[in-house]
């Protein structure tokens, strides 16, 4: 299959070539000693960027598969959430959001399309900038917030920090541990170990996975984002799988600790609580969404503008979007190149699904750097 790629996988210059070689040799040796091929899932767009950008898959033994799970918060944002943001903007309320969310299609249109039609939508790089927009505006300003717990901490900090009265948050923040539960509970699960996202674990701490590994008998290793960090984490996971150990291990100790960042956790849980919600294309995820607690209800856009959002009927994906298999990709069942539209009817310029929009979406990343097939063919 010919894949269209914007940019070739980079030749990787390892900082410590010897260490990289010995890690790769170690992976091969462990894989050889195991009876079956192994699949490991990571749950972070930045991990996928690094793996794809540096062509790491081409270095892995053929019996080791590393797949991306639901690690893209924008991609799992449900259509009704986007439709709500679009509806507010179309009723004249200023909606601020991150660039990644701006172009994700809702059931009828994206915020970018709403803006092109005159709705007041602004792209910001941080929740603090959204607050600045509110300070300089006399009207209502909503921050349509997206991101995992790492980013939700920043939203929590601005909400707890006395924002102006005309500011509110429409939260599409997601919490990653419950989504890992969904994957772990999938029937016929192939995944034998998880590479957990280092920067989410900086906040929550490694300990948060202890119950999980016990319940599901599956090891979790926290890893950083450099190519060497990733290889080292993979070695740790393979060792745990080989030895039949369901444990949590930390391969990113220079940033992650067992307990995590207590101050950030305090802010996060002071402002947010978990709630159930649908993750686009995946499942109803119990406790997978972060919503504002009742004591901050006055800053909750879903409550403040309940009247404007009442009766909003969400369409279902139609046309090409009905063929999008983002959900299967994010649960590790399919790869971007399994999608008939990949690189043809669906490109970053004309995205059909959210996975082709976000810089953390598997389709967007494979389109930029080439995916599994390309990286493997090139180097082998």
């Amino acid at each position, binding site marked *: 299959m010919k894949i269209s790629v914007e940019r070739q996988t980079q030749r990787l210059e390892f900082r410590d070539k010897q260490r990289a070689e010995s890690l790769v040799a170690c992976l091969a040796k462990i894989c050889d000693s195991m009876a079956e091929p192994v699949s490991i899932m990571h749950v972070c767009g930045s991990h996928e960027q*690094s793996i794809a*950008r540096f062509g790491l898959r081409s270095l892995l033994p053929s019996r080791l598969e590393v797949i991306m799970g639901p690690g893209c918060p924008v991609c799992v944002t449900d259509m009704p959430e986007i439709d709500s943001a679009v509806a507010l903007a179309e009723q004249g309320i200023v909606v601020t959001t991150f*660039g990644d969310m701006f172009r994700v299609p809702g059931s009828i249109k994206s915020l970018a399309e709403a803006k092109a039609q005159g709705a007041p939508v602004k792209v910001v*790089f941080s929740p603090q900038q959204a607050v600045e927009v509110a300070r300089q505006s006399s009207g209502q300003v909503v921050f349509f917030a997206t991101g995992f717990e790492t980013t939700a901490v*920043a939203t929590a900090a601005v909400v707890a920090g006395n924002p102006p009265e005309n500011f509110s948050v429409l939260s599409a923040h997601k919490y990653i541990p419950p989504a890992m539960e969904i994957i772990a509970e999938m029937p016929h699960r192939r995944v034998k170990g998880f590479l957990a996202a280092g920067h*989410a674990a900086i906040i929550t701490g490694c300990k948060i996975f202890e119950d999980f590994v016990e319940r599901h008998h599956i090891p979790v290793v926290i890893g950083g*984002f450099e190519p060497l960090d990733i290889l080292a984490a993979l070695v740790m996971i393979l060792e745990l799988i080989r030895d039949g150990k369901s444990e949590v291990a930390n391969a990113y100790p*220079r940033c992650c600790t067992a307990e995590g960042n207590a101050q950030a956790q305090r*802010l996060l849980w002071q402002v947010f609580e978990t709630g159930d919600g649908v993750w686009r294309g995946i499942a109803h995820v119990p406790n997978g969404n972060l919503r504002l607690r009742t004591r901050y209800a006055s800053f909750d856009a879903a409550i403040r503008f309940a009247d404007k959002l009442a009766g909003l009927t969400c369409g279902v994906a139609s046309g090409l979007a009905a063929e999008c298999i983002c959900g299967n990709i994010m649960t590790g069942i399919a790869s971007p190149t399994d999608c008939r539209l990949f690189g043809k009817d669906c490109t970053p310029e004309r995205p059909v699904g959210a996975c082709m929009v976000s810089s953390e979406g598997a389709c967007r990343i494979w389109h930029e750097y080439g995916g599994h097939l390309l990286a493997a063919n090139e180097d082998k």
Partner: protein
Amino acid sequence: MCLGVPGRVVAVDGPVAHVDFWGVSRRILLDTVDEPVVPGDYVLTHVGYAIRRIPASEIGETLEFYDSLVREEQADLMSRDVKEELGAAQQS
């Protein structure tokens, strides 16, 4: 989006740090970091907030990786994400 970016603390002014990122100084908020931060420390920042203090002695590896992304002449997906992180904080 969770990648974050590290920078060197130049000055601390109450809840705000002035942090140097490849020669550009930005205001980073410290509400979200759980250790005292002093000039000379590095902090990992995300959307304008510090989320982790990294002692200078441990930053070498991390910096090299980001160096290669920031100095990349032709912007790509990952280096653009890093640059967006830099855009998240106000210049100081």
